[in-house]
Structure formats: C-alpha cells, structure tokens
C-alpha cells in the first residue's frame, strides 16, 4: 500500500483507528513504567514515554499527510504548526529530563564545585540533544536554507568537496586536536576548522582549480575549476555562518540555565512548563536579536550570500559554455531577449503616450475651429 493515495475518508478512518491502538499501548506501557525500578531519566527515554509516543504519533501523522491527494494552503500551514508543536514537545521532553536532573540534587547539604559543574554539564548535554532536534524541526522548509545548525557543521561539507581536500586534511597537524575539540562541543573549533580548510584548500587544490588550463577544453576546464572552487568556498562560508548561529543557541542555553533556578521548588505542572517555554523562547529571541544586530552576523551573512552568488555566477558561466554547443539558449541569450522586450515595451508605452497627446492636441484644435 505504500505510496498509494487513499481517499480522504479511508485514510482518516485508518488514522483514527491507529490513534485508538496507540492510546491503548500508551496506557498499558505507562502502567509498566510507573512500576519499573528504572531511574526517572530512563523512563523518559523509553519508547512509550509521553515523549516517545508523541514522536511516533507525529511521524504517523506526517506519513498520512503525504498520502493525501489534495495539497493546498491548509496543509501547508498545518505542517508549519505540526513542526512547531514538535519543537514544543521536544522542549517538554528536555524540561522533564532537566527536572529529573534537578530532583536528583541532594538538598540536605551544599554541593561541591565538581557537583555543580557536573550538574551544569548534564543540563547542557541534554540541551544540546534538544538543539539537534530544534534546528532540524523548524517549520516551513524556508529556514533550511539558512543552514541547519549542528555541532559538526564543518563536517557536513559535500562529499565532493570533502574528497577533494581529504589528502590535505590528512596532512594537517592540528586536525586531530580540532576534531577532538569539536566532538567535545567546542564550537569555536568549528571556525578554526573552517579557517584551516579554507587556507589549505586555497593553497593547494583551490589554486589548481583556478589555474590556467591548456588545450581544446581549456575554457571548459577553467570554468569547471572555478565552479568547484566557488562551491567549496561557499560551503566554508555557510558552515562558518551556521556555527555562529549554533554558538548563539548555546549562549542562550547558558542564560536559560542561569534562570532555571526560578523553577526550583515549584510544583511540576502544565503551567510551570508553559512558564519555562515562555522563558526559553523569549531568552532565545533576545539572545539571537543581539547577534542579528551585530557586525559579526552582518559580515558573515554577507560573506555567505556573496559566496553563494559567486558559485551561482560560475555555475551559470559553465552552463552557458556547455549550451553554446547546442541550440538551447543560455542565460546570456535569455538576458538579451529580456532586455530587448523591456526596451520594446518601454518604446510602446512612450509611443502610446505620444499618440494620446497628439489626439488631445487635435481635439483641442477642432474645438477651436468649430464656430460657437
């Protein structure tokens, strides 16, 4: 049945049936969990915990939506809401873990520095897991183009770029250190990696890419080289840009952590969670706003957009060059046509105005000629 399109009535009925069975499973597994001797943090990780169940439910919902034949505004907006609700539920999951972590703190004595550090690290680790899902779950798809901010962003460069620079990277002495730092969550190391990547690339393969070529395919080879070079540089800029977004997310996490003491001793309730959610998004909004106003952001955004445009420019050059050997018009040909049409349209508009003015003049003359 996979891939088939059912009628709305059929899939709705199937879906509701599934809802029912999921609820039954949930109730029975929840009972088991409550009796289990596993620590609270483990409960949350179990497949039938509320978080796990919501995950399954939202996946089944997404599957069913794709089966629908009709697409439209309702579906588009519904998907945005569903994706944002996923972020909300993931935050709920994080909040539950964080509450569990705080619950484990012994109240009868003062904590040691190490214990406080450990507590913070645990909190931040859980938060990082949440950030993974957050940045992969933004609504509407359009945010994806801003770069999915992940810890290993520099490692997400395309296979093509990676294979080109692999030999260089192997010889870079600092690399093991940096990779280790990245794996420990040090985001500034991502920037270091980007810098080394870029420098070594430009010194070696990059130089070869933009080096003059010889022979019959000289122009084609040069354009291919320039395109790959521009693509690699775009990726580097994109990753650097993504890493500042991620870094800001961690900065916001620190602020949320500092303020989470406001919730210590408060009864866990839907209202407490909603207050935590409000705190979370407003702190993030403020923190990102600071970044968005900064010169650092504007400079890096500019760099990323510029690199992206340069890649597109070289790609168009390459496409035009290839199309030259066919009877299909390229970008330059089309631009010429667009320009000509634009000039003609303007000419027609001017002519129409001139004719109208002449008609008015003639009518006025006629009126003057006619005897009163």
């Amino acid at each position, binding site marked *: 049945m996979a891939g088939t399109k059912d009628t*709305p009535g059929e899939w709705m009925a199937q879906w509701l049936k599934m809802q029912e069975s999921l609820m039954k499973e949930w109730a029975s597994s*929840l009972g088991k*969990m*409550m009796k289990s001797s596993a620590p*609270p943090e483990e*409960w*949350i990780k179990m497949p039938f915990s*509320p978080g796990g169940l919501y995950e399954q*439910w939202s996946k089944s*919902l997404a599957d069913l*939506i794709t089966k629908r034949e*009709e697409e*439209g*505004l*309702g579906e*588009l*907006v*519904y998907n*945005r*809401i*569903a*994706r*944002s*609700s996923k*972020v*909300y*539920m993931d935050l*709920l*999951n994080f909040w539950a873990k964080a*509450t*569990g972590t705080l*619950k484990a703190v012994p109240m009868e004595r003062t904590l040691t520095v190490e214990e406080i550090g450990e507590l913070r690290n645990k909190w931040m680790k859980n938060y990082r897991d949440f950030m993974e899902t957050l940045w992969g779950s*933004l609504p*509407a798809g*359009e*945010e994806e183009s*801003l770069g999915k901010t992940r810890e290993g962003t520099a490692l997400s460069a395309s296979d093509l770029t990676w294979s080109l620079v692999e030999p260089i990277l192997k010889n870079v002495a600092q690399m093991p250190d940096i990779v280790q730092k990245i794996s420990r969550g040090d985001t500034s190391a991502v920037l270091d990696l980007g810098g080394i990547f870029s420098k070594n690339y430009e010194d070696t393969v990059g130089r070869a890419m933009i080096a003059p070529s010889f022979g019959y395919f000289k122009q084609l080879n040069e354009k291919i080289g320039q395109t790959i070079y521009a693509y690699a540089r775009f990726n580097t800029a994109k990753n650097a840009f993504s890493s500042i977004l991620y870094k800001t997310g961690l900065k916001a996490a620190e602020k949320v952590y500092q303020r989470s003491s406001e919730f210590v001793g408060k009864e*866990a*309730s*839907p209202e407490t*969670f909603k207050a935590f*959610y409000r705190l979370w*998004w407003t702190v*993030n*909004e403020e923190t*990102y*706003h600071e970044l*968005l*106003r900064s010169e650092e952001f*504007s400079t890096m*955004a*500019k760099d990323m*957009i510029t690199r992206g*445009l*340069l890649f*597109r420019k070289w790609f168009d050059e390459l496409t035009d060059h290839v199309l030259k050997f066919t009877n299909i018009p390229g970008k330059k040909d089309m*631009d010429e046509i*667009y*320009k000509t049409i634009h000039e003609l349209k*303007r000419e027609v508009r001017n002519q129409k105005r001139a004719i109208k003015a002449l008609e008015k003049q003639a009518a006025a003359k006629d009126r003057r000629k006619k005897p009163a």
Partner: protein
Amino acid sequence: MVENVMEVMMKESARVQQKLLKGFENMMNIQDMEEGVTPREVVYREDKIQVFHYKPEGEDVCPVPLLIVYALVNRQYMMDIQDNLSLFRKLIGQGLDLYVIDWGYPSKIDKYQTMEDYIDGYLNNVVDFIRETTGNDKINILGICQGGALSTIYASLYPEKVQNLVVMVAPIDLDTQDGLLQVWAKYFDVDLMVDTIGNVPGEFLNLGFLWLKPFQLIIDKYVGFIDRLDDPETVKYFLRMEKWIFDSPDQAGETFRKYVKELFQQNQLCKGEFKLGGRRVDLKNITMPVLNLFGEQDHLVPPYCSKPMAELVGTKDVTTIAYPVGHIGMYVSSKAQKEMPPTVANWLKERSVSGKKKRSGKVKK
C-alpha cells in the same frame, strides 16, 4: 515529583495531540483563501499590473477619487483580508471612491524593469486613467509601506496631478540603525545579487522578515495557535494571514537595485539627492496637503523612518498620526480598523472640497 513530571508530559502531549486533530479536521481540506473580500471591478490593465475599483457607499461621497499604492514586496489584499477586517470596505463605507493597484508578480522577463517604469510608467498611466475616467484634474493618493515611498516620489515629480498625499508606514528617512532591515541593508551587495540572479526571490525577502523575530515568528506564533485550532473561524483568519505573509512576489532586479542602493543604503530621497529618469526628486515640490500615518511599534519600518516627513515636504499642511501598533497592526488591529478609515476619510473630504489648509506639525496619538 517525577510522577508529576510524567503526568504533565502526558497531559500536555494529549492536549497538543487533541488540538492538532481538531486542526486537522478544520484545515486540511482548505485549498486556498480568497485574495480580498470586498466586491470590486478590474478597470485597468497594463502588462502584469491591474487596477481594482471599489465603488463608494453612502451619500457623503468624496468628490476626488483615492488611489491606493501598495508595496511591491507584498500584496495589497492584506487591507481586505476578511469581512470584519477590511480597510478597503471601511474606506468605501466612508464614501471614498477607491482605486487600488495590484502590481502582480514579476517574472524573469521583468528583470530589467526599473523604478522609472513603475513610477513614470505604470503609476503615472494609472493616475492619468483615473483622472480621465473621473474627470478630475487631480486625485488623492494613499501610499502604503514601500508604496508610500513610491507615492512620495511620484507626488514630488507630478504635483500637478495630486490633490492630497496620504502615506502609511512609509520608509522615507532610512539613515537609522533602529530596524534590523536597515542594519542588514548596509552590508548587502545588491549589485552582485541582481547581476547574478536577476529578480530577487520573494522567499529571500521573506526569510529576512522572519529573521527579524525568529523565535516568535517561526515557533511561538504556531505553538500559540495550537490552542485555537478547534475554532473554524479563527483558523480561517489564521490561514488568510499566513497566505498573505508568505505571498511575496519576486522583485524586478533593476528596481530592487535602485531601491536598496539609493534609498536604503544612501538615503538619497531624504537627502534630496535621489534622481528618477534623470530628474532630481525634490520633496519640497510636495506642496499638496500630507497625512502621515505610522505605527509606534513598527519593527519593519520603525517610526524614525516615517516621522520626518513633515520637515521634508514643501507644505505646511501636514498631519502626523502615530498609532500604538506594529506594522501589521496598522492593517488589522482593532484600533486601526476603528479609527483609521474615518480619520483618513474626513481628512481627505475636508481637503477635497475646498482645499483649505488645516493644522500642521503635531503628532497626534
């Protein structure tokens, strides 16, 4: 405590699921929403633009027609979004004879379309069309957002055709760091963008608008709406707003280049250095009465950008009114819906009969 946490998770999870199910019923079969609700007639077409005519109601009809010039970056139907929230309906209800330009959606073929084409070409043709068909030498113009800047330029170049100028949330003085768009624009290499991709995609601009308040506009807006998914009428309103927000036409490359470089980056209009078709646009030529409306909490066009109109134009008959709302609130907030149409209509009627001059300068709240 932990039992409580589990209970909260269960409750919240169930609440969200239940609401989403209701939303599923209420939303999934809606294919599209109408673009504007007030009856209208298409009275003029040229290339991709068209002009709608909304007939005035009541007996106290303003003798001079009003042309609404909306921004190029979004669509004009925001002002006619639904029956109870339509500024168009309320304006015609006040006896205004309303014409509205729909700029359409530029495609690749329009990449060389310039600001001259828009202002000296389309806008001037539309104004002439209305003058001829209604028998008025001059008409009233209401420019909104970017359309406010376009209308201001037009009124400066063609003052003999404009009886009164109304601008709403118009970006006039852009030498500010108040708004993020103004900050980002300074870093933007518009030449490279237009030379490379021609038209500027609407999605790109939308992304910029969303990033002005990312967590509010990308997450909290939708999370907050979950609770209201079971109300079909609220769902319809939300869908209309969503449609409008993401309905951003691509921008004709050459127009966008001039707009960003000369107005946003160099603030030429405010400095009196802006030229259109080789002619300097001197705002002192604006000698007709001016009504300047803006939102005090506008994050897209901060008040700083709109306020200075009174000092820049050549007339002393300037009325400035600030509303305690944001950019979108200027179109749909209950305050704006209630107060703005009668204010605009009365202001225009007073000046469309005798043209007598009224108070000037003060910011009304």
